[in-house]
């Protein structure tokens, strides 16, 4: 679109929002960041695990490189990102296919919105993701 006045598009700053924005905006941002982190990890994961096709020595050597507390911590962060991305992904799937936004209603003040309607679902997602991440933490660091 041709500029007709002084440009005033927010740019990437508009993605992050913050401060006065709603709860769902933060989940949107977190979903993006966790997705990107998972994609980066996944690409590396393909290369690392593919050494199994070369033979046991290559595999054992790679595994010795990616072991140790720093890598375990990194893997745990990936697990936590997965926990959030997966549980929030279920919420988004249900919403974006029109199942969790409710039916159209008569707008009577104070307005009820689909965003308010799924707020409990959003809170449940955070809680479940937290519990899954906590469970994973116990498994990664305590029960090992």
């Amino acid at each position, binding site marked *: 679109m041709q500029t007709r006045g002084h440009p005033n598009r927010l740019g*990437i700053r508009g993605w992050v929002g913050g401060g006065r924005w709603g709860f769902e905006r933060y989940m949107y941002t977190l979903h*993006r960041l966790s*997705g*990107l982190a*998972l*994609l980066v990890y*996944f*690409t590396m994961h*393909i*290369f690392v*695990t*593919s050494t*199994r*096709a*070369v*033979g*046991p020595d290559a*595999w*054992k050597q790679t*595994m010795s490189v990616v072991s140790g507390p720093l890598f375990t911590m990194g*893997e745990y962060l990936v*697990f936590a990102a*997965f926990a959030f991305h*997966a549980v929030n*992904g*279920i919420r988004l*799937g249900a919403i*974006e*296919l029109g199942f969790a936004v409710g039916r159209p209603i008569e707008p009577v003040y104070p307005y009820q919105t689909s965003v308010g309607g799924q707020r409990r679902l959003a809170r449940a997602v955070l809680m479940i993701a937290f519990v899954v991440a906590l*469970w*994973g933490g*116990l*498994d*990664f660091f*305590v*029960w*090992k």
Partner: protein
Amino acid sequence: MRDRTLWTWHIGAGAVILVLLGLHMVIMHLSGTLGFLGVQDAEPTGWASVAARAGSLFFTLTYVALLGAALYHGFYGFRNILMELNPGRTVRSVINVGLSVVGLALFAFGTWAALAAPGAATMAGG
């Protein structure tokens, strides 16, 4: 292909990942949880376990399915982010072609690894 079709596949791939990656996480990374369930697997990243899984048709098939679904889901999501940065027409084409090529190459490489792994295991006497 139009965005409607691509997006529908993205959601479908998400559902596939949810099941397969859930399994993958439990088997590979949550050995303590498996212990609760009465499954005392050997070290999942040990060569013996790797070779055993490589020889199993179920694991090979699910690896390839998970690889494809996860690559598609991830790269479509990444494409979304890039497209929303409002690139010009040429950059859009570069993004579309570039992500498709990289995604397919990774898929080919991962599939090769999954199919070649049983051979490597047999050669090593695993």
